[in-house]
C-alpha cells in the first residue's frame, strides 16, 4: 500500500519528484480556478441568453486574469473595529485547506519518472478521506473568523449562517462518504478508486442515493447557489467577505472556486471512479488523467447548471432539508448498505435482507414523520414559517 515512490528509501530524486508534483498541483489548481471562473460566467451567460465575457483574450478567456490584476492593485482596507490579526489570517485559513484537500485526490494512474514508479497523486495517506473531511472542517473557520473579525454586522450574520450550514451539511456529507468508504473497505482515496475499477462505480454500486446526498451536501458546503445564504447579496451585502477588499478578497474568491474544483474532484474520486475509464493502448499513462479531467469538467458544469436553475433556499428550508431529510436518508442508506454487505458475507438471503431493510426504513420514515408532525404541533410558531 502507499506510494511505491518511497519503497526504496528517500533520495534527492524522490524529493524532487514530490516537489514537482506539488508544483504541478499548485499550478493546476490556479489555472483551474482561472478556467472555472471563466467557464461559470460563460455557461451561465449562455443559459441566460447573454454573450458573457468576450473582451479579454479569445472568447474572454483572460477575463479572470484581468479581474485578478485589478484586485491586486486595489487598496486593501481594514475596518476600525476589526480584530486585526484574525482579520488578516482568515483568508489564508480559507485558501490553504482548498489547496491541501487536493493533495489526496488521485488524478491519474501510476507512472515512471527517472526510474521511480509513482502514483499521480501527491499523497496517499491511509486516512485520506478523514483528511478531506478535516480540511473541509477547517475551511469553515476561514469563513467564520472572517465574519467575526470584521467587527461589522452583516459579515457576522453571514458567518453565523455559514457555520450552522456547514456543520449541518457536513454530517450528511460524512454519512454519504462513509457509504463509499464502506464499499471500498478503506479510507485511502486510491483504494477507493481501485475498488471502483471495471465500471463498478460507487455511483450505481451504492444506489444513486449517497451520490445525490453528497452532491447536495457538497454544494451546501461550498456555499454555492442554491445554498449561498452565507453571502446572499440581497440580505447580507457580501456576507462574510463584505469588509474584505483587494488581495484578501481575491483570496476568498480564489478559495471559493478552488473549493468547487476540489470538491468536484472528490466527488469524482468517491463516486465516479476517479481516473478509471476505458483503457486505450496509445499513451496509456495519459488517458486516466484525461478521464479524470473529463469527469471533473462534467461536475463543474453541473455546479454551474445548478446555479443557473435554482433560486436560493430560505434559511428554514435549508435547515429542514439538512436535518430532516438528508441526514436521516443518508444514515438509513449507510445502514442498508452495511446490512447488505454483512448479509453477503454471512451468506444470508439477499432478498430477505433487502426486504427487512426496506421495512425497517418504512417504519423509520413513519416514526420520523410522526415526530416532525408532533414537533410542529408543539411549536406552532415554527410551523407557520
Amino acid at each position, binding site marked *: 500500500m502507499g506510494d511505491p515512490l518511497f519503497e526504496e528509501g528517500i533520495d534527492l530524486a524522490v524529493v524532487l519528484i514530490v516537489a514537482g508534483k506539488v508544483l504541478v498541483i499548485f499550478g493546476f489548481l490556479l489555472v483551474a480556478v482561472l478556467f472555472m471562473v471563466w467557464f461559470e460566467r460563460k*455557461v451561465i451567460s*449562455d*443559459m*441566460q*441568453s*447573454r*454573450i458573457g465575457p*468576450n*473582451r479579454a483574450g479569445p472568447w474572454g478567456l483572460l477575463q479572470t486574469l484581468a479581474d485578478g490584476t485589478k484586485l491586486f492593485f486595489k487598496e486593501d482596507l481594514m475596518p476600525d473595529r476589526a480584530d486585526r490579526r484574525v482579520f488578516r489570517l482568515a483568508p489564508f485559513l480559507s485558501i490553504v485547506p482548498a489547496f491541501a484537500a487536493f493533495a489526496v485526490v488521485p488524478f491519474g494512474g501510476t507512472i515512471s519518472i527517472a526510474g521511480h514508479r509513482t502514483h499521480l497523486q501527491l499523497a496517499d495517506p491511509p486516512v485520506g478521506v478523514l483528511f478531506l473531511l478535516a480540511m473541509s472542517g477547517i475551511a469553515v473557520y476561514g469563513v467564520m473568523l472572517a465574519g467575526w473579525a470584521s467587527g461589522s454586522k452583516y459579515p457576522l450574520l453571514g458567518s453565523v449562517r455559514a457555520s450552522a450550514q456547514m456543520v449541518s451539511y457536513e454530517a450528511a456529507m460524512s454519512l454519504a462518504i462513509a457509504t463509499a468508504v464502506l464499499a471500498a473497505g478503506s479510507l485511502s482515496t486510491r483504494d477507493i478508486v481501485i475498488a471502483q475499477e471495471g465500471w463498478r462505480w460507487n455511483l450505481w454500486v451504492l444506489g444513486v442515493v449517497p451520490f445525490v446526498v453528497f452532491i447536495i451536501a457538497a454544494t451546501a458546503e461550498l456555499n454555492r447557489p442554491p445554498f449561498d445564504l452565507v453571502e446572499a447579496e440581497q440580505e447580507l451585502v457580501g456576507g462574510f467577505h463584505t469588509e474584505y477588499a483587494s488581495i484578501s478578497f481575491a483570496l476568498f474568491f480564489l478559495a471559493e472556486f478552488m473549493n468547487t474544483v476540489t470538491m468536484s474532484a472528490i466527488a469524482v474520486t468517491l463516486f465516479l471512479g476517479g481516473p478509471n475509464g476505458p483503457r486505450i493502448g496509445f499513451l496509456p499513462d495519459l488517458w486516466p488523467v484525461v478521464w479524470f479531467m473529463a469527469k471533473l469538467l462534467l461536475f463543474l458544469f453541473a455546479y454551474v*447548471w445548478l446555479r*443557473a*436553475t*435554482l433560486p436560493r433556499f430560505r434559511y428554514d428550508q435549508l435547515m429542514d432539508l439538512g436535518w430532516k431529510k438528508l441526514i436521516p436518508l443518508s444514515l438509513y442508506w449507510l445502514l442498508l448498505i452495511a446490512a447488505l454487505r454483512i448479509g453477503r458475507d454471512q451468506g444470508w438471503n439477499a432478498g430477505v435482507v433487502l426486504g427487512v431493510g426496506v421495512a425497517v426504513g418504512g417504519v423509520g420514515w413513519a416514526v420520523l414523520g410522526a415526530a416532525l408532525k408532533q414537533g410542529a404541533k408543539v411549536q406552532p410558531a415554527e410551523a407557520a414559517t
Partner: protein
Amino acid sequence: MGYLDGFRITLKQMWGDRVTNAYPDVKRPKPDRFHGRHVLNRYEDGMEKCIGCELCAGVCPARCIYVRGADNPPDAPVSPGERYGFVYEINYLRCIHCDLCVEACPTEAITESKLFEFSFTDRQDAIYTKAELVVGDDGHPRKLPWEDWRPGDEEHTSAWVRATAPSGDATFEGRVGWSAELGFGVRSPEKDQASAAESQKPAKPGGARKKR
C-alpha cells in the same frame, strides 16, 4: 418532469438565441429621436446657421451653453443674418441632452447627433467650442479622437428635429418646413405618424434577437 423542468429550460437556453450583442464591436441602431452630442449646422453655401441669439443658452436647464453674439463683419459675413455666434461653447459635463436648445433654435442651427459614446480625460476636453461643434466643409460633424463615430453615424445629425421644431406642428405632418443643410441638402420629412408606427412594429416578438 416536475421539479426538474427548470434544468431542461436552462439547458435548452444554451443553444438558443442571444438577446445581447457584442457591444463595442456590434451596435444596435439607435432610436429615431435619440439625443446625442450637438452639431452646429451650416447652410449649403457654407454660411453658419447660428445667429448668436442666445435662445439656446437661455432655455438650457443645465446652463451648459455659453453664447456670445457679434455683428457680422460686412466684408466677410459668417452667417446670412445681422449677427453670428461669435463664441459658442457647450459643457458636456453639465449637458443633460434634453434637447430644449434644439427646440428653441429659430434657425435650426443646433441639432443633436446620435453620438453618446464620448469620454474625456481632461475637463477642458469636455467643453466643446465652435471649432468642434460647427460641421466641417462636407457637412459632416468633426470627429474628435475620444468620440466613437461609426461609418454612417454622420448621417444622423438632424433628421429627427422636425417633429419637435416649430414647424413640427401636426398640421405640417409630412411637409418640409426647414432650410437646406451643407452636405445633405433639404432633408426629407419624417414619416407621418401612422406609417411610422407601422414600420416600427417588430416583425415578431423578440425580433431584435440575434444568433450568437
